[in-house]
């Protein structure tokens, strides 16, 4: 089980730990559109929060809030800085929290079965839940240990957070797990001066990225459009449609990135754009059969035109996109195999299927 959970994390990861109410907390931090933790969250005028990218894409489609269906406008979206900080903070703590709470619940099980080896491990308790502490006191007294006094001591000692490592960038110490999973990325993306000495969460920083504006394509010539793309260091190959949708997609990625307190480097955005384009190619292959006659002849026309003009450019671009793909292929296949916990073919009868679920639950 644990091998696939980190790749596709899910609120239900907390369902079997000693604090299952964290399932709700975890799901509150996620975007209703992509179900991931909110990235560069923005607030709508009706008070709901989504990833900036997700809601911007949805609003092109339907100008309504997905949760309450009130009419909203892209121009009125506001950054939700505090939420982003909370999300970053929780993401950083998540693995540790999960591990500890799982260990803890195993300990509780053993306690219930009447084992006495509990006391040493008690010191690992991190959550300051009052109820927990009271019940712990009782257990301690029963076993005849230090009672309240030891409790106070325990509270004062900082929680153990696994082996520490030093961040190569800011030279501060963090648990190695945090360092590897989150901190180095954050540190690379945040100007040194802005970092608080004791905080995992970066302060809101003033970055220099300016939002891009929508273009009125009807009044733009091909050459001007290509110049605009070139200025943004984007590829200028492909037909008019491709150029326009490339600009529009990049506009969303860029503007959403401006909403983040830890904006990514434009290089990362350009890579995302390239990935988006290559996924589009994949989809096209997939849906060719559904095209009608007109679609086909249009496509053939487009293909002829663009191939004549941009054969060389395309070759270059292909080399580039293959490069990107090969780096991600492994991740992708991991993700897919990981979401396929076991042999999951659909069962023929519902009785069998409930058995099947039980296997998963185990």
């Amino acid at each position, binding site marked *: 089980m644990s091998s*696939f959970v980190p790749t*596709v994390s*899910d609120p*239900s990861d907390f*369902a079997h730990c000693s604090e299952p109410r964290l399932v709700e907390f975890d799901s509150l931090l996620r975007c*209703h*559109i*992509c*179900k*991931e933790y909110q990235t560069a969250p923005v607030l709508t005028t009706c008070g709901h929060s989504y990833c900036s990218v*997700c809601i911007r*894409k*949805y609003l092109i*489609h*339907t100008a*309504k809030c*997905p*949760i*309450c*269906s009130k009419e909203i406008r892209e121009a009125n979206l506001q950054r939700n800085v505090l939420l982003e900080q909370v999300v970053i903070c929780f993401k950083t703590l998540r693995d540790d929290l999960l591990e500890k709470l799982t260990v803890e619940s195993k300990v509780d099980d053993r306690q219930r079965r009447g084992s006495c080896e509990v006391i040493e491990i008690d010191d690992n308790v991190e959550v300051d839940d009052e109820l927990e502490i009271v019940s712990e006191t009782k257990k301690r007294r029963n076993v005849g240990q230090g009672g309240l006094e030891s409790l106070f001591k325990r509270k004062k000692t900082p929680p153990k957070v696994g082996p520490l490592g030093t961040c190569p960038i800011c030279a501060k110490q963090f648990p190695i797990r945090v360092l590897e999973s989150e901190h180095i990325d954050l540190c690379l993306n945040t100007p040194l001066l802005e970092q608080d000495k004791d905080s995992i969460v970066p302060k809101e920083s003033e970055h220099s990225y300016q939002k891009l504006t929508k273009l009125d394509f009807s009044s733009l010539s091909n050459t001007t459009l290509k110049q605009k793309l070139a200025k943004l260091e984007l590829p200028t190959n492909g037909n008019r449609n491709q150029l326009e949708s490339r600009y529009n997609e990049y506009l969303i990625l860029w503007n959403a990135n401006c909403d983040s307190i830890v904006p990514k480097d434009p290089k990362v955005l350009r890579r995302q754009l390239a*990935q*988006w384009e*290559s*996924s589009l190619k*994949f*989809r096209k292959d*997939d*849906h060719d059969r559904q095209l009608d006659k007109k679609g086909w002849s249009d496509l053939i026309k487009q293909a002829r035109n663009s191939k004549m003009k941009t054969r060389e450019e395309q070759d270059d671009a292909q080399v580039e996109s293959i490069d990107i*793909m090969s780096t*991600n*292929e492994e*991740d*992708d*296949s991991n*993700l*897919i*195999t990981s*979401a*396929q*916990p076991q042999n*999951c*073919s*659909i*069962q023929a*009868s*519902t009785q069998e*299927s*409930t058995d*099947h*679920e039980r296997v*998963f*639950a185990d």
Partner: protein
Amino acid sequence: MPPRVNTAQRRLLKEYQQLTKDCPEGIVAGPVSEDNLFVWDCLIEGPKDTPYENGVFPARLTFPTDYPLSPPKLVFTPSILHPNIYANGEVCISILHPPGEDPLQYERPEERWSPVQNVEKILLSVMSMLSEPNVESGANIDACVLWRDNREEFERRVRADVRKSLGL
């Protein structure tokens, strides 16, 4: 070559994972193959105290490439007799319709598709559709008429479908 994992695929993976962990009673759903997450097979159990009881109905969910911005399509294979299921098996309920599309104004916007909905909610709506057909906005007119005017014959034909679905 494995498919690119984009937003739609990630979200589908998540929903699939969640359904395998905790699936509502009477529903099974999952991708047909791991190469293509955009097509799912589902099995839906006929709700109790309806003519569909004891039936297990296979259906196919087809997701658009911009899922969850647009809703998936649900088709019963084979089709079953129901006022809200077209003769070709396609299910016609409000949760599968995007908020913009409602020429007849039958459906309230909050009942319709939005990215907040998910596969689980769709399949649960389908189960409640099986127990309570909505003849106001029928898809299969013959089934609507039969349901309204000759309930006995309607239920007899549904039970025949059920037996067929069980291979009896």
